[in-house]
């Protein structure tokens, strides 16, 4: 079995998670799609060149995160957040590449995660959503594990606060 066949066998089952993480990191579907495709292709080029270390999944997510960081460094379109579904319904011209958080039938959790700062959201996505350990997340984002623990703690506290506000606003709407 050649390099490409092995790589496809390892990467193909991860494409759904890979795409979701890329979209949530980028904040919109179009950029997320670009990041996911570029990440896998760059991972294949590195894999072919023999530049691979450790387990496959954290390694390929590390490649994805580097692509995301490079995209963050250069200017791109800002993410669009719409936290009111009625506002979306009132929109006359809706692009087929509308924000993923609206299309995916997300709840308050998606919106709360989307409202986090980039450096906290990435750690939360990798640790809580993707299930990586602290050391694996540290390997992916190339920071110490203590930084991961600190960012994750901040992200969870912010997520808790955002969820609490959303729940209270919904409760107030339901009461009114």
């Amino acid at each position: 079995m050649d390099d490409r066949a092995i790589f496809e066998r390892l990467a193909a089952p991860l494409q759904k998670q890979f795409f979701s993480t890329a979209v949530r990191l980028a904040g919109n579907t179009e950029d997320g799609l670009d990041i996911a495709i570029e990440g896998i292709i760059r991972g294949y080029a590195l894999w072919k060149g023999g530049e691979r270390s450790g387990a496959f999944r954290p390694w390929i997510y590390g490649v994805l995160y580097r692509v995301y960081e490079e995209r963050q460094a250069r200017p791109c379109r800002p993410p669009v957040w719409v936290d009111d579904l009625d506002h979306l319904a009132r929109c006359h011209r809706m692009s087929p590449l509308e924000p993923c958080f609206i299309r995916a039938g997300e709840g308050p959790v998606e919106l709360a995660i989307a409202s986090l700062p980039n450096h906290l959201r990435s750690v939360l996505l990798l640790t809580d959503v993707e299930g990586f350990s602290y050391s694996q997340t540290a390997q992916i984002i190339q920071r110490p594990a203590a930084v991961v623990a600190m960012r994750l703690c901040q992200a969870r506290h912010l997520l808790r606060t955002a969820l609490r506000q959303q729940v209270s606003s919904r409760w107030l709407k339901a009461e009114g």
Partner: protein
Amino acid sequence: MANDCTRMAARISSLLDRELADREARRIRSHLATCSRCATTYRELRSARLSARSIMQQDPPDDFWRSIARGMDGVDTIAQSERVRSPTRIRRELGAAIRRGTARGRFGGRRVSGVVRLASSRRGLVLCGAAVATVSAVVFVRVTGHADPLPSARQPGASAGASLGAVGTGRPGQSGHGSAAEGSEGRRNAEVLKPVVSKGEPKRSAMWKENAAPVKWRLTPAQSPHRSQDVVGKGDSARPERSARS
């Protein structure tokens, strides 16, 4: 107690992920059992973590993997073309051809000319070196008048400085006439050819003299007895006859 709770809040998150040491985890659990505020924080963070874990994965577009496959085809193409055009590969093939002594017509897709092929083989290098040495020796003899380019190496008594001085001035005949310390063979070689003033076309080497008189070379009788006798004999025998006739 409030200060203790502030410090605990940062550790509760790590406790949820079981990333704390056993002793630290036991200490925090005992604190949670007594502090209702920290216990509430723990419950809320745990529910937030579970909520984050429960969000749904999104399906990629239909042509997602097709786009990736196209990109991987491009990576394969680039890798193959770089492998063909790699300078390392060209050097390796060229070195192998030189070791074989026969260079093929192509190295890594590049056509190599016959000169490069000759120069890249050991036999060609030896032939080039021999040709250069031969031409240098001929030029040296023609310019300096030395039949032996290294007389001092043959004659230990000969003065290297004198011979070098003759070579440095480049004037024919001076190496033999100017220095009495020269060896006998060096002197003999120097006296074999002597400039003779004639009305013919001037030699290029004679133009170095100040008056730039036309110079002709001839053998001296003392150093080449047989040939000079022949020449002199012919001349001596011819002149009286001409004078007798006249």
